[in-house]
């Protein structure tokens, strides 16, 4: 808009600023609390002037919750989910938009339905599958009498079992299998002019060549946006990692934050908890800052 209205400008900026304060205040309070010592943090009301124990608290939080390996775990998982999403969604959207094959609409709607069934809703069956990935096949073989047949013929009892509990694949794969990314790509692919596809065909590029040479470079912004969102989403996952990682070596940073929150009867060490929160918040923040330029473009622009 190119209106010159100083009063309106002032008002809009005022609203913007109010919103900013509203959003940022909790973080400021977390940061201040993280700089107090045990006594100051439990004062009522807590002093809003920063204390001097910031680095001490950060160090305590780091060692108490053993955040080093946990952050690494979280990073591997979040990165895995983001990368998996970016690749798998691009492929599925490519197939749906650019190919005509029987059952295409069926597949489209199957993917669509997963939007209505987020992980939290189907968490029990998903857990069962991850506990033994081959379970569905075992069931099919049992029901069709195939395993009985094999047992009769070879005397070997068929017992398929592949557990993914306490593993990175178990953490990552179920989170990759959702439809959001597919739709983001689909919308973008639909805006790519047909003539570009045809020009590539005239130039002799096959489907895969077109996908890699033309479509993927054009979707850079989309990939950045999707990757960022998925990284944040996966980083902040709580229920799923909590459920399938019983082993400390696969624990996530976000779930381990619980370790720092004072128990009933324990010392009210909120300054340590807040310091831990700050540490765990940092990686997503860095990702957003680094990706922001691409991220915003990918979500708003259909620039070609």
């Amino acid at each position: 808009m190119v209106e010159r209205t100083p009063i309106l400008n002032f008002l809009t900026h005022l609203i913007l600023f109010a919103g900013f304060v509203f959003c940022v205040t909790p973080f400021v309070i977390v940061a201040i609390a993280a700089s107090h010592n045990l006594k100051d943090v439990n004062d009522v009301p807590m002093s809003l002037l920063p204390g001097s124990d910031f680095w001490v608290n950060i160090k305590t939080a780091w060692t108490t919750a053993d955040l080093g390996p946990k952050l690494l775990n979280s990073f591997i998982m979040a990165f895995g989910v983001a990368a998996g999403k970016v690749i798998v969604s691009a492929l599925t959207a490519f197939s749906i938009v650019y190919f005509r094959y029987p059952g295409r609409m069926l597949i489209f709607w199957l993917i669509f339905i997963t939007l209505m069934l987020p992980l939290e809703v189907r968490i029990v069956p998903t857990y069962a599958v991850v506990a033994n990935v081959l379970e569905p096949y075992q069931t099919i073989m049992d029901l069709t009498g195939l395993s009985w047949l094999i047992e009769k013929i070879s005397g070997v009892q068929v017992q398929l079992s592949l557990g993914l509990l306490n593993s990175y694949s178990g953490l990552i794969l179920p989170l990759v299998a959702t439809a959001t990314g597919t739709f983001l790509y689909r919308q973008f692919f639909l805006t790519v002019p047909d003539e570009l596809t045809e020009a590539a065909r005239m130039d002799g590029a096959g489907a895969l060549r077109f996908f890699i040479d033309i479509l993927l470079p054009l979707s850079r912004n989309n990939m950045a946006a999707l990757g960022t969102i998925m990284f944040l989403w996966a980083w902040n996952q709580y229920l799923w990692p909590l459920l399938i990682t019983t082993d400390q070596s696969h624990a996530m940073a976000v779930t381990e934050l619980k370790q720092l929150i004072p128990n009933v009867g324990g010392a009210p060490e909120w300054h340590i908890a807040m310091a831990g929160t700050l540490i765990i918040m940092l990686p997503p923040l860095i990702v957003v800052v680094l990706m922001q330029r691409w991220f915003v473009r990918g979500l708003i622009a259909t620039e070609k």
Partner: protein
Amino acid sequence: MASITIRGVKKNYAKTQVVHGVDLDFASGEFVVILGPSGCGKSTLLRMIAGLEEISDGTIAIDGTVVNKLEPRERGCAMVFQNYALYPHMSVAQNIGYSLKVAGVPSAERAQRIQAVARVLELEHLLDRKPMALSGGQRQRVAMGRAMIREPKVFLFDEPLSNLDAKLRVQMRSEIRKLHRRLSATSVFVTHDQVEAMTLADRLVVMNGGRVEQVGTPAEVYSRPASRFVATFVGAPSMNMLEGTVTLDGLSLLGDSRKLNVSRTGLPVGSKVAVGIRPEAVRMVAPGTPGALAATVDLIEELGAGRVIYVDLDGVPFSIVTSETVHPEPGSTVGLQFAESDLHFFSSETGGRLDVFKASVPEPAPATL
């Protein structure tokens, strides 16, 4: 260099047929322009030659090889698209060289060929730019370069000039013509712009409603249009049409109110015909001149070199192109005269041309009314 043979080609989309059996032969090295209004199936035909659309029925052969089942890349065609269709993320050099890259040409040879093409098209200083940073005409040239570099047997142009401004269009037109003379590859050019068609074509194919109306040199199509559609579509302003009925001694026009004495029409009495006359062939005379049609002036369009005068002939709009410096007042009455030899006759039922003066009158007598 390749000839193209099109036999009984049809195109159906679900239940609607858009191309109804086209037979055409393009000679090797020829520049053919397919002209028609939008929706006439001309682009579909071109895309079937290119291999971008499936051929529902009939065959297309390039150099004697039926290409119906071949992929676009196997047909040896290159195409220039209306919106250029340049890859936005690649530089000009990469755009031009992409087909060679796909074909696995080593990069040294590729660079050399890109340079050669860029030199011809005067793109050398732009090779590192992205398409976004180019003007319309430059993008057009890149699109042509992309087609040229493969040294194709056949060039296909799908309305490539329609996104350019008028001046650039004229310039690109002559560049395409020059390029064709230089490469002498068979070229098929689709357009709805008749000036483009007339100036570029060795041979003109006029299409309408999925059928070929006429094939011929631009001069032939202009001077002997094969149907009423071609007559009105080619030429600007378009040919004037008057409805008439054949009588014993000539034609009655404009609902029996006028009579046109034409010699030996050879048509059965009572048959309905459309009489066409080009605006350029009409002469304006003083009202009341014996044998002239009286008409009322509606509007004058000044063209600089000449002017178009729109008149009203008993309710039928009629136009005259003249280079004389006459400026009749709108609302005034003028007389119109034309020679019998300039008249075109079309059947009112089929729209086809009626050659009533086949063994034409040696000295055409002026038509009188």
